[in-house]
Each structure stands twice: as structure tokens, then as C-alpha cells.
């Protein structure tokens, strides 16, 4: 990626242009609705989308005319592992048993983030799962997803 993009501003600019262009297309696709004297429903989304494209263009040009700079690393091995675990946990939140899922998530994240204390690996996942479940269930009377 660093071959095409000289610096972070160019990456941000290109991303904003793509995002803004998609949003512009979606805004143009919004139906006009009943004929009333007011702004059309797509007025605000369209203004914002076009504004985002313009901001992206400015950033892209600014990046193009600026010095080469190191691009920020999006994910390293640690954060990639955490992101995958979180993605699974959040996406399938209501399919998982909260107690079991939380225990597993906390354990996995601690391992990925290089916790090497077996005492903490034993206590923290169980304690987190139990304390949060009991607090929500009995203090706030909120039923978190459980199996059975």
C-alpha cells in the first residue's frame, strides 16, 4: 500500500472519496416522497456525502504534495487476534451463552495479549463473567442471553 500512497493523508483522502461516493450514490437513490414544500428527504445526506468527497479530495491532494511519511500499522498480531475474538463475540452475542462466551472471550484476549500469570488466567475470566452476569441479572434485572 505504501507504494501507491505516500502518506496517511493520501490513504484517508482516498478512503473518504470512496465512502463519500458510495454515500452520494445511495443518497441519489432515496425516493423524493410526497410533493410538499420542504427540502427533499435526500437533501441532508447528499450535502454530507458531497462534503465528505470534497474533504477527501483536499486530503488526497495535500497528501500528494506532501513529503512521504510512514503509514500507521492498522493491526499487529495482538490487535488482530483481539479484533477477531471481539468480532465473533459481538456478532454472535445473542447466540452465545453470556457466561460461557464471556469466560472464553476474556481468556482468549488475555492469552493473545500475552498474560502469563496462570492465577490471573484462572481467576479474571471467571470473575468477569460472574460479576457482570450477576450485576446485570440481579441488580439491573436485565436478562443477558443464556442457553437453556
Amino acid at each position, binding site marked *: 500500500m505504501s507504494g501507491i500512497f505516500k502518506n*496517511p493523508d493520501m*490513504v*484517508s483522502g482516498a478512503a473518504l472519496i470512496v*465512502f463519500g461516493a458510495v454515500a452520494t450514490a445511495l*443518497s441519489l437513490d*432515496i*425516493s423524493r*416522497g*410526497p410533493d*410538499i*414544500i*420542504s*427540502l427533499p*428527504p*435526500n437533501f*441532508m*445526506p447528499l450535502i*454530507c*456525502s458531497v*462534503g*465528505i468527497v470534497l*474533504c*477527501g479530495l483536499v*486530503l488526497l491532494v*495535500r497528501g500528494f504534495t506532501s513529503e512521504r511519511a510512514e503509514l*500507521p*500499522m*492498522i493491526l*499487529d*498480531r*495482538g*490487535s488482530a487476534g*483481539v*479484533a477477531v475474538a*471481539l*468480532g465473533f*463475540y*459481538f456478532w454472535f*452475542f*445473542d447466540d452465545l451463552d453470556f457466561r460461557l462466551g*464471556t469466560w472464553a*472471550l*476474556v481468556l482468549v*484476549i*488475555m492469552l493473545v*495479549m*500475552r*498474560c502469563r500469570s496462570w492465577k*490471573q488466567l484462572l481467576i*479474571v*475470566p471467571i470473575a*468477569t*463473567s460472574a460479576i*457482570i452476569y450477576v450485576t*446485570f441479572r440481579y441488580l*439491573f434485572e*436485565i*436478562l*443477558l*442471553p443464556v442457553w437453556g
Partner: protein
Amino acid sequence: MDLISSADFMQGLAVLLNPNVHMFVLIGAIVGLVFGAAPGLTAPAAIALMIPLTYDMGLETSLALLLGVYCSGYFAGSIPAILINTPGTPGNAATGLDGYPMAQAGQGDRAVAIAIVGSFVGGLVAMVLLASIAPTLAKFALSFTSVEYFSLALLGIVCVAGISQGSLMKGLAAALIGVLVSTVGLDPTSGVPRMIFGIPHLLAGVEIIPALIGLFALSEMLMKSHRNQPVQKVMKTEERMRIGQIFMDFARNKWLALKSALLGTFIGLLPGTGPAIGSWVAYGDALRTAKPGDKYGKGEPKGIIACESANNAVTGGAMVPLLTLGIPGDPVTAILIGALMIHGIEPGPFFIRDYGWLFVAIVLLLFLSNIWMVIIGLLSRGTLAKVVQIPAYILVPVICVMAAAGSFAVVNSAFDVRIVLLFGIVGYLMVRFDFPVAAVVLGLVLGPILESNLRNALIGSQMDPTVFVTRPISLAILIAMVALLLIWKRQAKKQARLTEQVLNDSKKGDET
């Protein structure tokens, strides 16, 4: 006509008789101190995580909890700034310039204690000004129409974009993304669905609380999960200061504290600003009026007094536009709008007239929060220093589970948990590329205000757009917006120069 009657005043005062209120202010103060002190956690993240828990609580108790978090969270960010040279929030960055050298010189405890008392002074001054300015401004705002409200919301958005650290374009793009997201769902006038992708959950729009949790809490946790986090040495705080000595420090610098608190309050009054601007402006002013012998950047207590008095004063100042105009002064007050709306209360020009008792209660709760903040802060400053050392591998999973459970609790919807994930990823990418996440939040909150008032203003003027410049108050607001942008642009340059100069001086001092 007085907006607040004596009956309102008595009813507001009666809130203090509720023991639960005191308990939740105390809990809020503790939560705020822990979140602020733990590097990588911030006051907005704490409040975003707490809001779902307030759904079943009464109005007074939920506000007690949130305001407790608000006051303490802003202060506690100074603890990691002082002890590990990593500000807990951007508002505490300037505190580290003198706080860290003090900690290096073995005066970490003194620096933390000065920050606590400074924050208390700032909070008190701001509270007094909130109580005196807000009713007058609210009375004036009763004459505003959609035209003025549109201009004010625009001022808020442009200001937050303009003062964003990094670049104006990034701030503006972030604010526009926020406004764009706020338009998702049914158009309020025509009922036409906008960008819902056939998902019924989106008909009512994107729920703001899960979006906030994702943007503030989840993105921060993803940042903390990087393996190449710098290992910081925590400065010792064993050398304890006597409380009397700390108050002597303040007695000597009372005018500086008062001036900084006033600066912070007035900066908080401006929509879209925040504690970061407040503390830098106050620090800059303290530097400008430095006396011979002052050693700013090398461990000068006055530097901490100026920054902390100012950044906590922003809390009271930022409540003024929220409670009188319905326009948030900073990211936390943007989140507080959500908390008030949960209880069916819409902040705006009618707020003080219709809920005078609640306004009185909020002022008193801010006062109570500041009292608890200073008591707990001074008593537990040794323990708070230990919070800085909580390992990331414990913080990250615990906060993420709280984020998921909290967002699910809002309306028992797994869809909201996915919204948290989506906004967490967006927030993380924005932070990686130096986009201000706070601007997205203000865009989300101000978007509907902007759109509805633009519509009403245009309909009321037969679609004549010149109405925004022909009405004097609206014109004044728009002129102020342009002027503020120019001033902040210059201020940002000055701030960058100031930071560089102080850091260079500090380095030179270290070398010699």
C-alpha cells in the same frame, strides 16, 4: 419573569435529601476516577458505558451517577499524565508538561494533589457561573426561532471540526460522517426511508448510545490491544504531601486558579469546544504572565494549577449551551443529551422554564460531585496511582464485555451490539489516521437539530435561504463562527509552537 420559581428551587434542593443520590454520586466519582486514571480509558467512554445502566434508574439518581463520572473522569486523566507522561484524556496533555517533571523529581504526590484541588476550584467556579449565566441565556434563547437554532447547530459543528487536533479537513469530514449517520432511518417530514438497506432495526435510525459506546470504548480498547505499546515507568508517589501544604500552594496562586477557571468556563460555553482547548489556553496564558524564576515545563506547580482549574471548569461551562440551547458544549455533554432523552427530557430553551427544579438539581449534583471528587481523590491518591498500572490484558476484555452487555441492555437487542462493533471499527480506523472521534459524536447529536431547524426555517421563509443572514442574531452567530475559526487556526499554530518550545526547554534542562 423568573424562570426558576422558589418552588422549583425547593424541589431541586430536595434531591439532596435522597440518600440514593449521594450513593450514586459517590459511585460515579469512583468510576470516573478509575476510568480517568487508567491510561486509554476516558470520561466519555465511562459515561457511554454507564448510560445503559441508568435506564431503570430514576432521573435524579441516573444524573447523579453520570455527573459524578463526568467531573471525576476529566480530573483523573491528569494522574497518568503526571505519573507516566501519558494523558488520560487530551484535556490533560498540558498537565503532563509540568506534572511529569515534578513526578520525576519525586514530587508526584504533590503534583497529583495540586491537580485534584485545581480541578475542584475549576469545578466550583464553573458551577457558580452555570447557575448565574444559564437562566439569563435561557430567557434570551426563548426568542430564538429555527433560523437561530440552525445557525447555532452549524456553529457547533464547524467549531468542533475547526478546533480538532490535526487538521480542519479531518475534523470536518468526521463531523459530516456523524451528520450523515444521523440521517439514517425514516425522514421525519416525508416518512421516506433513508439508507436503511432493508434492515427494519434502522427505520428508527442508528441508536446513539451503542454508536457512542463503539466510538469511545471499543475503539480505545482496540488501540490498547496493540503489542507495541510503549512501556512507561510509573513515577513513585511515596513522598506524601500534607493537605495543608497543598492548600498553601493554592493560596499563593489563587488568582491564577481563578483566572484559569474563568477561562475554562468561557471556553466550555462555546459549542463544540472541550477541556483540551481550555487547558491549553489557560497554560498559554499562565506562560504569558510567567514571573522570573517560574520554571514552566520543568515542574512548575502553577502549570498544573492553570491546566486543571481550566479543564474541569469546562464541565460547568459546557452544560450552559446544553441546558439553554440544547447544543452540547463537548463530547460528554453530547452523550448526556442521550441520558436526558431516556427520561423524556429534551434539553433546549424550554428546559429551565419547564424543569427549573431539575436545573437546580443538576447544579447541586455538580457541586456534590466536585466535593466527592476532591475527598476521594485526596484520600485515595496513592491507590489511584496503582490504577495506572492495571495491565492492558485485564482492562481490554473487561471493558469490551461491559460494552457488549451495556449496549444489549439498552433495548435487549443484539442488533445494537453489532452497531457497537461497527462503530468500534470505524472509531479505531479514525483514531489510527488521526481523525477526531468526538467530531463524529457531535455530528450525530447535532445532525437532527441541524436538519429539522433548516427545514423549519426554510419552510417559514418560503424557501428563502437569505433568512439566515437577514435575521440579526443568526447573522451574528454566523459571523462569530467565521471569526472563531480564524482565531482557533491562529491559536492552534501558537499552541504547537508553545508545546515545542516547552518540550525543547525541558530537554535542554535535562541535558544540563
